[in-house]
């Protein structure tokens, strides 16, 4: 399912004293089966962008197109939003607001049930999804509100996995997860990507973006100001130095400041970095 966003503008509280321009003309196209990240500073507009992808926010102007679903400011055209949500699952930045049922399993089963899956099967899907995010049976009957921060995030993620959408959108999925949890969730997403799903992340973890994503959009003040493969983006940023970069490139930057210029273009991971350093020492 390709995504097409054209000249998207979004204003919170339009025509009120609280008026806030959040998006000022955003354009992008995401093909089927991409693994994409939106990165950028606090308040740049990342969460606002992705909340448009399942119609949680409706454009103030411009257009969001997901496959055949079109969202515009013309409300009459937006009637298929609930269908759209079968195809696009979004995990919010604060998972709390996504949890509402009395038990963890009911919470996760809510999505599939909502999309006309029978009760039994929905529960089965819920259990599978919960296990896959590292929550065992002892969590199934607990209240989602009485969990730790990281556990809540896992439940919220399980909630969209259970819907089996074609496009998974996750806002800071690893914030608050322990390091094994991060690896777990990321390899899960990678597996879904291998299964022909589209994965869209918002993340501040540049190492993770560098490792998993194949395309990156840099958002600044409600606009996309840079895009490309992680390396293209990080290496070009490296020269300017205003955006944070993965640790391997940061290390290159420190060396460069001391006059040691590595061939950054052929460095993709720690091993590449170490090999170049060792080679230089031996020379």
């Amino acid at each position, binding site marked *: 399912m390709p995504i097409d966003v054209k000249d998207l503008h979004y204003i*919170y*509280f339009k025509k009120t004293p*609280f008026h*806030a321009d959040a998006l000022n003309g955003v354009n992008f196209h995401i093909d089927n089966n991409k693994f994409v990240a939106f990165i*950028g*500073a*606090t*308040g740049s507009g990342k*969460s606002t962008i992705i909340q448009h992808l399942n119609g949680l926010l409706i454009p103030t102007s411009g257009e969001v197109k997901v496959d055949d679903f079109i969202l515009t400011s013309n409300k009459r055209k937006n009637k298929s939003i609930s269908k759209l949500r079968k195809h696009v699952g979004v995990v919010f*930045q*604060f998972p*709390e607001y996504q949890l509402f049922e009395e038990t963890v399993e009911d919470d996760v089963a809510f999505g599939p049930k909502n999309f006309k899956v029978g009760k039994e099967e929905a529960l089965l899907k819920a259990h599978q999804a919960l296990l896959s995010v590292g929550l065992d049976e002892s969590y199934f009957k607990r209240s989602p509100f*009485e*969990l*730790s*921060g*990281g*556990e809540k995030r*896992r439940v919220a993620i399980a909630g969209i996995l259970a819907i089996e959408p074609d496009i998974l959108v996750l*806002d*800071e999925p690893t*914030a*608050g*997860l*322990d*390091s*094994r*949890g991060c690896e777990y969730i990321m390899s899960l997403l990678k597996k879904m990507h291998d299964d022909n799903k589209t994965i869209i992340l918002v993340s*501040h973890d*540049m190492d993770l973006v560098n490792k998993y994503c194949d395309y990156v959009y840099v958002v600044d003040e409600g606009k996309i100001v840079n895009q490309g493969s992680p390396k293209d983006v990080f290496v070009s940023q490296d020269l300017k130095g205003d955006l*944070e970069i993965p*640790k391997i490139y940061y*290390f290159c930057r*420190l*060396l460069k400041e*001391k*006059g*040691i210029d590595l061939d950054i273009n052929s460095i993709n991971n*720690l091993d590449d*970095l*170490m090999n170049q*350093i*060792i080679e*230089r*020492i031996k*020379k």
Partner: protein
Amino acid sequence: MNAISVKNLTYEYEENIKAIDNISFDIPVGSFVSIIGKNGSGKSTLAKLLDGLLIAKSGEIKIFDLILNNKNIKAIRNKIGIVFQNPDNQFISTTVEDDIAFGLENRNIDSNKMQEIVIDFAKKVNMDKYLNKEPSNLSGGQKQRVAIAGVLALNCDIIILDEATSMLDPKGKEEIRQLIVKMKQENPSLTILSITHDIEEAYLSDYIIILENGKIIKQGKHKDIFSNLDELKKLGFETPFFITVKQELLKHGYDFSDCENINDLVEKLCQLM
């Protein structure tokens, strides 16, 4: 003197499920402590116990020379500022300005002075342009900045940060860290307890407590904790990046074990190249 002294503390949300299980530790005044541990290990529960938001089933908490009990709870709360894991749980007022001011109002601060403090801290966290906005209508990272400002402004003796910068961009994280370092320079007796999943952050503290299943499975000075990296790894923690680089170099026969930080390492490395 200890800022925090905990003895045999136990807490159960539900009968017989111990979220905190008989833990003891002492934190000397002026320490910078990190609490690390897996999801659900009990970190946030511990933070809430220290602030008297949850009442322990058994054990004792002492803040400076005050034992946490009904009589002392108010005095203790005035000494501790806590930034919660979810900033929304912290917001009470309808504007950022009032929200930062809220805690100060409870501390009988002169209103002119108060205004000054609020603006000062809003500036320090880069949110002075948002004073009239409603906290719930901010981005995730902006919310965290406001929550932090509200607590730092109180000028408490003990600050507890529960993953307070988890949604900030790396630059923002560093800005907040610098802000706290500066506050500590101005007031060396400030005690900081930072709950975090970021090993790079934990690496910068001088004492580390590791929780698992409500128990302290290890605690010690920075040096003791980070001298046994294999053990840390086994416990499920990553290795700080510059140490990983040092380990890789050692594999090739280059020993940089005396380098204490990344800049030091880069410096020495450059001398070889």
